[in-house]
């Protein structure tokens, strides 16, 4: 039967997952639990009966909850029993705790103790006595305070037994007091006021949340019984609960005090059982799906859920709470903590997960259960508010109907929602304000040390980057006053006429002027402005993650991206001129841009160079012009002709001849400058250098035929490469059009890859595809809308993807059908054939399949190899962790952010430092490298022959002479690397092609091994090798350092 039902790999994986997270109720574990419980019982039994307690020792707590009359005589608890997930056998690792309900004795309470937090105060005092006695017992390692669902007025005790069991690390017992039938339920009705301090001009207001907080304790045993009845003996349901718990825990924004927890999941499941939406024949995964579907789509939520099929006062609950799951026998809304925003977040997540199940295919399991969906990765903007020491938010008391932290959450939430209006799709505010191991005895004032966290998802970039917020109609007095009150001075009263509305209306508006490349900062300004205006906090306590990484992309103060409009303009002119050329045998039929700068994915798109324009005279210069210029590749196609030669070499030569002719023609008719080598032809136009390439289709078909005949021997001709480039370029260009934030994310990703010296391992196009994957297949997220979030997801993709066993399919136009996927899979399996025998024997270690390259041959066939990939993954992993920490916790000084791009220099056998001022673009160097360990092998002086900037004395002479001095595509680093590879093939170099001043060297293991055998006598000294290396880079190399001996032995 098994083989029949388990054909789905998803089911198999789910089974494995359940095995992994569920706890085996083995005899040893049961014994540990029972022993712990009985020793807790013993300790409690040692407490003398009728001990008079006054609450003096915990006066701080009593004062802060606002209780009076808290004296009572201690009695033993009425009962002690195990409840919670342990009793359902659904404990999920890694949080292994056993809930222990101790029933508070009626004798300790008065009839009216439900008033004014007296119950809460007494409950706490009772627990603190127990804590005192538990502390005396040596069978407990430690006893700590914690809280029930982050509610500070309802602390619970965490008891760590001294006995440990290896299979259950971190096992704790939670002591939770219950209040079965302590009070009259009718007195705790939703409409009643039980906190006298809460009133409006003398009229008491209802306190539904306060009442629910007491009711919750009164019915917890009852509900546990109810759950036990449902769950025990139904394995599949229990497993579904486990799955749902894992699912929720991976989603930080959902698994929180104002949204979902394990208990509520169990309640929802039992609701579904009670209403026959889940039945005995279903498998865990099916129950999981049904539950999510219910959460996401059911209309019942709007009316409230009732566990028993009745409910006379439905609307009453719905008025007080956004979400209702009600138990009519106990009159409590079990979801009284859930807020509207939390619930809509939950519905969104559930809907997304359903989409994953439908669309992700083989990756669904990983998306749903294994991917961590935390604030930094999920939300586009994260804001932290440090409210430590801020007395404003609890000015009217810590606990009224709600606790002050919760109402402050609400306040921030509504302020931001109003201020951001339709810019934000959702705003989520969570304040997990209770740090672990805090003490409540001295009051609640210390519960503000943790920062309040805000996550903002943007709706669309157009809306989010809008510069004007149009407000109320100025003639509508009431609305206008409201608008003015909200925006204060910022609002302008203008004659912004609404053309759309067809009548000239005078509207109020708020204007946020911004340069194009700084538009992502508008949101930051709005958030800051609103919070500062409406909350009494200082600017320094608002920490937003928006622009912290921009330093890596700017030149000086400006982002070179701002030139991209002029670049596209220049390209248009060029393409027109090319098409107009008449004096060559074949006309130009199409012109296509290839360089990443045209699709906004170049880290440093070129700035217009003052000398590379056509104007006749030398322009006046404000700053020294660079002496190098980056050419941008442009692909040309010519009219078809039968006269092309047949062999490769001749074709290439003919192309060159054509290009030279074209260059000459441009020179003659437009006065453009053309410079050429045997392989490349560059023309200057309005400050840019364009490198022209010709694609000859015939070359393409030749290659195709070859593939058909012989798969293994693959000749990749120039035309083939050009063709792939052009396909890639146009697809990425389309993507960039749909997702404007794609460009900045790619630029950050490229900068990161380069700054960790992986330039040789991962090609730019491969990075573009990896980032594209985040956008075309964003599940389980939605497509990122900010550069930092996108960058973080890129790092996590690199770090977490299962590169060895799965191909990454980047479906740029979402047009793959099953047979395409099968083809890709087959090709992938071909590359992994040798893996089982020899794990090093793998081509395309990173398998990237796209519609133009299904066999991953274009970008990642040779590099990264397995070792490089491992290194890359390790770096990505640690950078991702650092970035997550920076967003969530760490102090945000710029240094820590810079660490994301600072690379450690000690992971190499040797390091070469270069003269930073001999790099072609010294302004791109992020951090000058220093090295204070290792052994200095050689040092050298800088050459005088090359300067990255043209000095004033070079600038004399006519423009033509100057143009000749302009170095097109001259890059000493590239020349050096090429020389190194030529000269000593035992070294592998790691470098930063974007402008790093260090090169890491590692000895290639296989080569050195061979060398050992072949010429054992003539072993090369690493020091000598390094000297030769230094010698090869004369005038460029500053120093060569030897760090650690290469592994020469087998």
């Amino acid at each position, binding site marked *: 039967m098994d*083989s029949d039902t388990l054909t789905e*790999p998803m089911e*198999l994986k789910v089974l*494995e997952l359940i*095995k*992994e*997270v569920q706890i085996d109720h083995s005899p040893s574990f049961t014994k540990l639990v029972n022993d712990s419980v009985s020793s807790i019982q013993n300790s409690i039994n040692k407490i003398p009966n009728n001990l008079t307690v006054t609450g003096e020792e915990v006066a701080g707590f009593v004062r802060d909850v606002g209780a009076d009359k808290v004296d009572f005589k201690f009695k033993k608890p009425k009962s002690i029993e195990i409840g919670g997930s342990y009793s359902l056998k659904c404990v999920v690792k890694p949080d292994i705790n056993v809930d222990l309900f101790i029933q508070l004795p009626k004798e300790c309470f008065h009839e009216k103790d439900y008033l004014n937090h007296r119950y809460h105060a007494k409950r706490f005092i009772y627990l603190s006595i127990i804590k005192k006695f538990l502390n005396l017992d040596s069978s407990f390692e430690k006893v700590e305070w914690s809280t029930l669902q982050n509610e500070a007025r309802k602390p619970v005790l965490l008891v760590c037994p001294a006995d440990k069991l290896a299979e259950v690390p971190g096992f704790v017992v939670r002591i939770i007091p219950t209040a079965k039938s302590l009070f009259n339920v009718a007195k705790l009705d939703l409409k009643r006021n039980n906190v006298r301090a809460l009133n409006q001009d003398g009229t008491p207001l209802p306190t539904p949340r306060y009442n629910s907080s007491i009711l919750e304790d009164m019915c917890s045993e009852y509900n546990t019984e109810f759950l036990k009845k449902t769950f025990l003996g139904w394995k599949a349901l229990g497993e579904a609960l486990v799955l749902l718990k*894992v699912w929720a*825990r991976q989603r930080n924004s959902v698994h929180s005090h104002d949204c979902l927890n394990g208990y509520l999941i169990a309640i929802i499941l039992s609701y579904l059982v009670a209403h026959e939406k889940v039945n005995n024949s279903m498998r865990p995964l099916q129950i999981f799906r049904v539950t999510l579907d219910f959460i996401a789509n059911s209309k019942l939520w709007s009316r409230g859920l009732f566990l028993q099929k009745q409910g006379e006062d439905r609307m009453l609950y719905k008025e007080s709470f956004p979400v209702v799951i009600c138990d009519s026998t106990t009159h409590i809304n079990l979801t009284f903590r859930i807020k509207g925003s939390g619930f809509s977040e939950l519905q969104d997540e559930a809907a997304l997960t359903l989409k994953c199940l439908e669309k992700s295919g083989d990756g669904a399991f990983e998306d749903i259960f*294994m991917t961590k969906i935390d604030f930094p990765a999920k939300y586009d903007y994260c804001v932290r508010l440090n409210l430590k020491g801020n007395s404003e938010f609890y000015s009217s008391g810590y606990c009224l109907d709600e606790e002050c932290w919760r109402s402050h959450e609400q306040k921030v939430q509504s302020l931001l929602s109003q201020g951001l209006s339709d810019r934000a799709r959702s705003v989520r505010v969570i304040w997990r304000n209770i740090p672990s191991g805090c003490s409540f005895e001295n009051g609640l004032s210390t519960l503000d040390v943790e920062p309040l966290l805000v996550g903002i998802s943007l709706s669309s970039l157009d809306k989010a980057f809008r510069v004007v917020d149009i407000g109320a109609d100025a003639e509508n007095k009431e609305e206008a006053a409201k608008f003015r009150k909200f925006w204060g001075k910022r609002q302008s009263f203008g004659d912004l006429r609404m053309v759309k509305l067809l009548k000239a209306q005078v509207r109020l508006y708020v204007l946020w002027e911004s340069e194009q490349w700084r538009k992502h900062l508008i949101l930051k300004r709005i958030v800051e402005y609103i919070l500062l205006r409406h909350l009494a906090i200082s600017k320094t306590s608002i920490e937003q993650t928006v622009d912290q990484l921009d330093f890596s992309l700017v030149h000086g103060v400006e982002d070179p991206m701002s030139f991209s409009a002029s670049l596209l303009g220049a390209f248009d002119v060029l393409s027109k001129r090319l098409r107009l050329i008449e004096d060559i045998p074949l006309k130009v039929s199409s012109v296509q841009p290839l360089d990443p700068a045209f699709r906004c994915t170049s880290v440093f798109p070129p700035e217009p160079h003052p000398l590379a324009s056509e104007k006749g005279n030398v322009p006046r210069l404000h700053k020294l012009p660079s002496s190098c210029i980056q050419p941008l590749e442009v692909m040309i196609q010519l009219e078809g002709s*039968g006269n092309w030669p047949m062999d490769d*070499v001749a074709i290439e*030569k003919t192309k060159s001849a054509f290009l*030279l002719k074209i260059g*000459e023609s441009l020179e003659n008719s437009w006065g453009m400058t*053309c*410079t*050429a080598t045997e392989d490349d032809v560059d023309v200057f136009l309005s400050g840019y250098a364009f490198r022209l390439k010709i694609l000859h289709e015939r070359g393409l078909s030749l290659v195709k035929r070859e593939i058909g005949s012989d798969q293994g021997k693959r000749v990749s001709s120039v035309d083939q490469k050009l063709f792939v480039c052009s396909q890639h370029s146009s697809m990425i260009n389309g993507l960039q059009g749909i997702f404007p934030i794609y460009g900045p994310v790619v630029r950050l990703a490229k900068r990161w890859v380069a700054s960790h010296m992986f330039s040789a391992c991962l090609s730019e196009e491969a990075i573009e595809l990896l980032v594209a994957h985040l956008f075309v297949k964003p599940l389980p997220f939605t497509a990122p809308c900010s550069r930092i979030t996108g960058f973080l997801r890129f790092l996590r993709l690199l770090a977490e993807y*299962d590169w060895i*066993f799965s191909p990454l399919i980047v479906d740029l136009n979402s047009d793959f059908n099953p047979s395409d996927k099968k083809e890709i899979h087959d090709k992938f399996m071909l590359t992994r054939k040798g893996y089982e025998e020899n794990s090093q024997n793998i081509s395309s270690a990173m398998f990237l399949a796209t519609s133009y390259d299904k066999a991953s041959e274009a970008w990642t066939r040779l590099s990264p190899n397995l070792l490089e990939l491992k290194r890359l993954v390790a770096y990505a992993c*640690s950078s991702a*962790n650092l*970035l997550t*920490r*920076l967003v969530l916790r760490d102090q945000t000084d710029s*240094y820590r952010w810079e*660490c994301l791009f*600072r690379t*450690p220099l000690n992971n190499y056998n040797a390091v070469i430092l270069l003269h930073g001022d*001999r790099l072609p673009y010294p302004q791109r160097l992020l951090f000058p490298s*220093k*090295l*204070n360990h290792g052994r*200095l*092998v*050689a040092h*050298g*002086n*800088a050459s*005088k*022959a*090359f300067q990255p900037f043209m000095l004033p004395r070079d600038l004399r002479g006519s423009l033509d002479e100057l143009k000749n001095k302009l170095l097109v595509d*001259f890059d000493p680093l590239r*020349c*050096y690397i090429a020389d190194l590879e030529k000269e000593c093939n035992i070294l592998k170099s790691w470098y930063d092609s974007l402008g790093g001043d260090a090169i890491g060297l590692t000895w290639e293991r296989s080569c050195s091994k061979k060398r050992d055998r072949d010429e054992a006598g003539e*072993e090369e*000294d690493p*020091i*000598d090798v390094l000297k030769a290396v*230094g010698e*090869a*880079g*004369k*005038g*460029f*190399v500053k120093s060569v350092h030897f760090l*650690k*001996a290469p*592994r020469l*032995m087998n």
Partner: protein
Amino acid sequence: MGNLKEKVDKKQKKKSKKPNNSDFSEKDVMIKKEDERNKATRPAEKKKRKREKGSSIDGGDAIQIIREDDVTKAEGEKKRNKLRKKKKEGRSKIMFCAYIGKSKKSKKKKKEHETSKEDEIILEKRGETNQDEAYCISSGDEDCSKGMKKWLTDYHQSRPGLKVLQQRLDEFIVSHEEKLEQERKEREAQAAEGGWTVVKHHKGRKKTTDSESGITVGSVAPAAVENQMTKKKPKEVGLEFYRFQKREAQRSEIMALRSKFEEDRKRIQQLRAARKFRPY
């Protein structure tokens, strides 16, 4: 070997008591970024140990690379130890000699194959390395054979101007054509030698150009071919026409499913081994 390792460890323990920045063992290959802020070593070291324990929370600025090669590790360690000493005491050259002497001694305890070649080499080169430990590279402005000057020269040489390039291209094409011509003549001569023309079986598609004159004979543009190919209807009759075909198709589908299932199972075992099912 173990003995030696112990010794090294001991030495390191001793060292770690002293606050010294460069003092971190290579064994735990936790690599710190060169970071001036880490001057206070003690807390940093503590942190490091912590990180070591829970590798999942390892520091962002530290990257852990696992090395498989124990032998070299011990050696690297040793070397580092010595180097450190050398640096600290500031008498580099003397200490360097001492180091070599010492290492020679300690090496004797090791098994033969572990006598590191590298150390021997350093021994050989000792004289030289001591004399000029840091070799000085000239700026190379006089010398065009290497380095910056060479690259610049290469650059300028590669751009002789459009005219020259044009000429070179013309020359190439002329010579290339001559070569082709000659080849053709040779072939003809060979064929004509016996008065015979060799007739070969011509494999594959017809050539679109006449090999001799370069004239297009029956050229078809690739775009057109592709177009034709897509227009061609797939054979509708045939696939599911006969019953046995259906049966075979079903069978092969089942076989494919079964093999996929097996594959998945295998894959899941691999994943399990790699602990890929732990969501935390």
